[in-house]
C-alpha cells in the first residue's frame, strides 16, 4: 500500500526549516513507521536524519513523535498510525532542541540521568559470592529495568514543558531502580535528595509518560512509589509531602478539599515569606470570584468517608 508520511524537517547547519515535507512510500501491512522512514531515507531523500538501530524496540534510538505523541518509530505499526488519519505525521521528540530533522540533542536527557547517582551503591564489605536477595525483589525491579532510555516519556512530559528543572520521568524511574534495590546502601540519602524541588513531588500525575512509554515502565507509577518510600522513611519536611498529607487530612475530615488550608499547610505555617507571596494570587481569585468559601464545612456523608480512611489506615 502507498503510505503518506509528513515529516517535520529542520537543518540547523543550513538554516532551513522547520517545515513539513510530504512523502509517499510503498509499504507492507506488517511494517512499522520506521520502515517507511528508512525507505524514504534510502531511496527518496538521503539527507533525512534520524537515529535508529535495532528495529526491535530494545536500543531506544528512534523515539520521536508520531501523530503528535511520542513513541518508538520501530514499534509503531503503520496501520495503527493510519487508523485515525490519512497521513502519518512524524516530528522530533518534544522538550528538546532539534539538531537536524528527527535528531535531537540528547545531552540534557543524560545530564538529568546523571543527577540521580545512577549506579548501585552498596555499603559495607562486598561478599565473596552474590548478594543473597529474594527473587521477588529482583522481579519487582524488572519493570524499571525494562527502561531503554529512549526518552519518549521526557518528550511528552507536561511538567517539563513548563519547568526545565524537573528531573523528569526517565531519571526518576531510574532512581527507583536503585532506591528499590535491596542491595543499595544509600537509599535514605537518595530519597531525601529526590524530595528536593525538581524531584519526585513535582510530577502532576498527568499520565502522559505512562501512556507513551513503549516498554510498559510506567514512570509515573515509579515516581509515586518513590513518594511512598520517602514518606515511609520520614522525608516529609517538604512542600510535596506536606501537600499530600494536608490533602488526605482535609478529605478525611470533611470529605472535600479545604483549598485555603491546603496552601498554608503545604508551604508550612512558619514559611511567612512564601505565604505573603501568595497574597496577589488570593486577591486575583477574589476578584475572579474563585475564592474558596471563608468557612470550610463538612459535606453530607463525611462520616462515611472518614470510616473508609480509618478502615484503610487500620490495615
Amino acid at each position, binding site marked *: 500500500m502507498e503510505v503518506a508520511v509528513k515529516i517535520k524537517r529542520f537543518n540547523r547547519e543550513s538554516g532551513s526549516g522547520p517545515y513539513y515535507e510530504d512523502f509517499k512510500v510503498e509499504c507492507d501491512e506488517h511494517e512499522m513507521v520506521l520502515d517507511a522512514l528508512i525507505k524514504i531515507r534510502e531511496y527518496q531523500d*538521503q*539527507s533525512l*536524519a534520524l537515529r535508529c538501530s535495532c528495529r526491535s524496540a530494545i536500543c531506544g534510538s528512534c523515539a520521536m513523535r508520531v501523530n503528535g505523541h511520542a513513541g518508538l518509530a520501530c514499534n509503531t505499526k503503520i496501520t495503527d498510525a493510519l487508523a485515525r488519519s490519512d497521513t502519518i505525521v512524524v516530528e522530533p521528540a518534544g522538550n528538546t532542541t532539534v*539538531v537536524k530533522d528527527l535528531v535531537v540533542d540528547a545531552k540534557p536527557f543524560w545530564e538529568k540521568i546523571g543527577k540521580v547517582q545512577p549506579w548501585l551503591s*552498596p555499603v559495607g564489605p562486598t561478599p565473596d559470592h*552474590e*548478594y543473597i536477595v529474594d527473587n521477588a525483589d*529482583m522481579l519487582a525491579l*524488572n519493570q524499571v529495568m525494562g527502561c531503554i532510555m529512549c526518552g519518549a516519556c521526557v518528550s511528552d512530559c507536561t511538567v517539563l514543558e513548563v519547568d526545565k528543572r524537573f528531573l523528569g520521568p526517565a531519571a526518576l524511574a531510574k532512581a527507583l531502580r536503585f532506591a528499590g*534495590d535491596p542491595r543499595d546502601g544509600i537509599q535514605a540519602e537518595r530519597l531525601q535528595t529526590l524530595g528536593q524541588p525538581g524531584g519526585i513531588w513535582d510530577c502532576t500525575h498527568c499520565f502522559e509518560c505512562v501512556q507513551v512509554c513503549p516498554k510498559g515502565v510506567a514512570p509515573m507509577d515509579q515516581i509515586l512509589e518513590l513518594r511512598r518510600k520517602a514518606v515511609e522513611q520520614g522525608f516529609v519536611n517538604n512542600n510535596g509531602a506536606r501537600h499530600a498529607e494536608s490533602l488526605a487530612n482535609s478529605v478525611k475530615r470533611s470529605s472535600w478539599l479545604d483549598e485555603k488550608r491546603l496552601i498554608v499547610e503545604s508551604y508550612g505555617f512558619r514559611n511567612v515569606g512564601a505565604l505573603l507571596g501568595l497574597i496577589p494570587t488570593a486577591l486575583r481569585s477574589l476578584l475572579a470570584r474563585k475564592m474558596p468559601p471563608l468557612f470550610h464545612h463538612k459535606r453530607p456523608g463525611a462520616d462515611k468517608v472518614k470510616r473508609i480512611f480509618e478502615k484503610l489506615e487500620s490495615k
Partner: protein
Amino acid sequence: MPQHDVLVIGAGLAGMRAAIEAHRHGANVAVVSKVHPVRSHSNAAQGGINAAMPEEGREDDWESHAFDTVKGSDYLGDQDAIEIMAREAPSDIIELEHMGVIFNRDERGRLGARSFGGASFARTFFVADITGQAILHVMYEQLMKAGIFVYEEWFVTSLIMLDGVCRGAVAMDMLSGRIEPIQAKAVIMASGGLGRVYEPSTNAMICTGDGIALAYNAGAPLMDMEMVQYHPTTLPANGALLSEAARGEGAYLINNEGERFMGNPRNPYYAPNKMELASRDVVSRAERVEIDAGRGVDGAILLDCRHLGKQKILERLSQIRELGIQFAGVDIVEEPIRIVPGMHYQMGGIKTDVDGATSIEGLYAAGECACISLHGGNRLGANSLLETVVFGRRAGLNAGQYASSVTQPVISNAVKSDEENRIQSILNRDPTSDPPAAIRLAMGQSMHNNVAVFRYEGGLKRSREDIAQLKERYAQASISDKGKVFNYNLISYLELGFMLDCAETIVAGAIERKESRGAHTRTDYPERDDENWLRHTLVTLKDGEPRMDFLPVTITRWQPQARTY
C-alpha cells in the same frame, strides 16, 4: 590532538568492560562510539550468560562448560581460550551481580540458572529475557561512575598506523562533521558484529563490521570468517530474533504435521537426546531440511510455546511475546509462531590471543569483532555475553599494561588532512543514481542466498563475483547530502565499504574450507574432514586482495569426536 593511553572503539559490553578494566589499572582511557553506549547491540542478547557454578543441588563444573563449548564449536574452537573462559566465568558473573545486575534468583536467594542449547547443565544466568540490556545498562552505569570519557556519536574512519604499530584512530564527530585524529598508545577494537552484511539479519543497523574491516585494512589477519551463525528462531517478516530462552524454557519446534521433527530420524540433523536444544547450527539445518522437504508452513517452521502457560511466558519470555504480537501479529500464549533460521552472529573475526592482542602491535580486540577462537564453527547460546566480559576485561588489562610501557609517539598533522581530503573527495563525486542502500541490499541478498545454512562452490563463487561487481559500483557511488551535521548518508556509505570488505573475506573463507563443520555446511563436501581441515582459515589483505593462510587448532584435552545431540 586529543591523547589517551587507551582508546576503546565501541561501547558495547566488551568495549565498556575493557575500558573499566584499563581505567582500574590507572590508564587514561576514552571510548569512541558511533552511538550512545546504551544503544549498542549487546542489548539484543536476550537469553542469558553462561557459567558453571557448582552449588548444592546444581551439579556442574567448568570442564563440562568447556567441553560443551568445544563440542558446540565442532572442535574448531581453541581449547586454551575456551578453558580460560569457562574457568573465569563464575567470578565475572559474580562481579556483574555486584555491579548491580538484577539476576534471577532461586528460592534461597542465590543466582538461579536456566537451560540453553548445547549445554549439559542448566548454567545460563539471566534477567528475564532482557539479559543483555540489563547488563549493558549496568555496565554503562559503571562507566559513568568511573568518569570515563566517551566520544559519543563519533564515527571511526581509519586507524592511525605508525611503522606498522597502531597508535589511535581518526574519527568524525557526527554532530559537527569535524574529523579528528585521537591519539592513543593502545587501541582496543570492540566494535561488534557485521550482521548487516546479510539481508535479512537479526542484527541492528549499526552492526556493519566497521572494526573488523578497519583492522583488516590495517593488515591484521581475520580468522574463520566463513563461520556465520544462523539462529534457529527468527521472524520471517523482518529477521527479528526470538531468543533461545523460549526453547530453554521448553518450547517446541514443530512442522506442518504438528510433529517435533528434532526427534524424527528422517531428518538427517535430528537430535534424539537434546531435541530443540541441540546447538544452533544443527537446529538451523534441521529446520531448513523440513522447510525444503515441504513440511514447513509458508516457508517457515512453527515455534510452539503454548504448553508453557501464560504465567511462565509473562514472567520469563515477555519480550518475546511482545515481539511476536508487534511484528507477526501472533500471541505465543495463544498460538504457535512462524520462524525461520536467520543470520545472527559472526564466529570469526580479528585474530587475537587470549589476552586480546592482535597481530598488530598496539591493537587489541574483544567481543564479536574478535576471534580468539572460542566459538570455532558454532557459538553456543549465552557464551557471547560471557565472552564480552571475560575477554573485554583481559583485553583492557593487557592493553593498559602495554600502554604503560610505551611513550606517546608524535603523530603528523597530515593524518588529519589526509583523511579530510579522502572524505571530501567522496563527497565531491559526480551524482549517480545508485544509492548505497541499493548496493547493500544486493550484497545482503547475495550473501543470504549463497553463503547461508547450506553452501556449495557454485553459489559461493557467484557471491564472490557479486561482491567484486558491487565493489566497483561502490567506488562510483555518490553522496547526495553535502552537509556536515549528522550526515547519515555519508556514514552509511562508509559503513557499506566496511561491509563489502567483510563480505569478501567471508566468501573467501567459505570457498577455501572444503568440508562441513559447524555453521559452514557444504553440500559438495558434506562431511567434517579432521585430517585436512581441523585448522583455522586466516585471511590477510595483500595487494588489495584477500590472501588465505591456515593455523592449527589448539587442542588441550578434548580430541575430536563425532558430534551428536
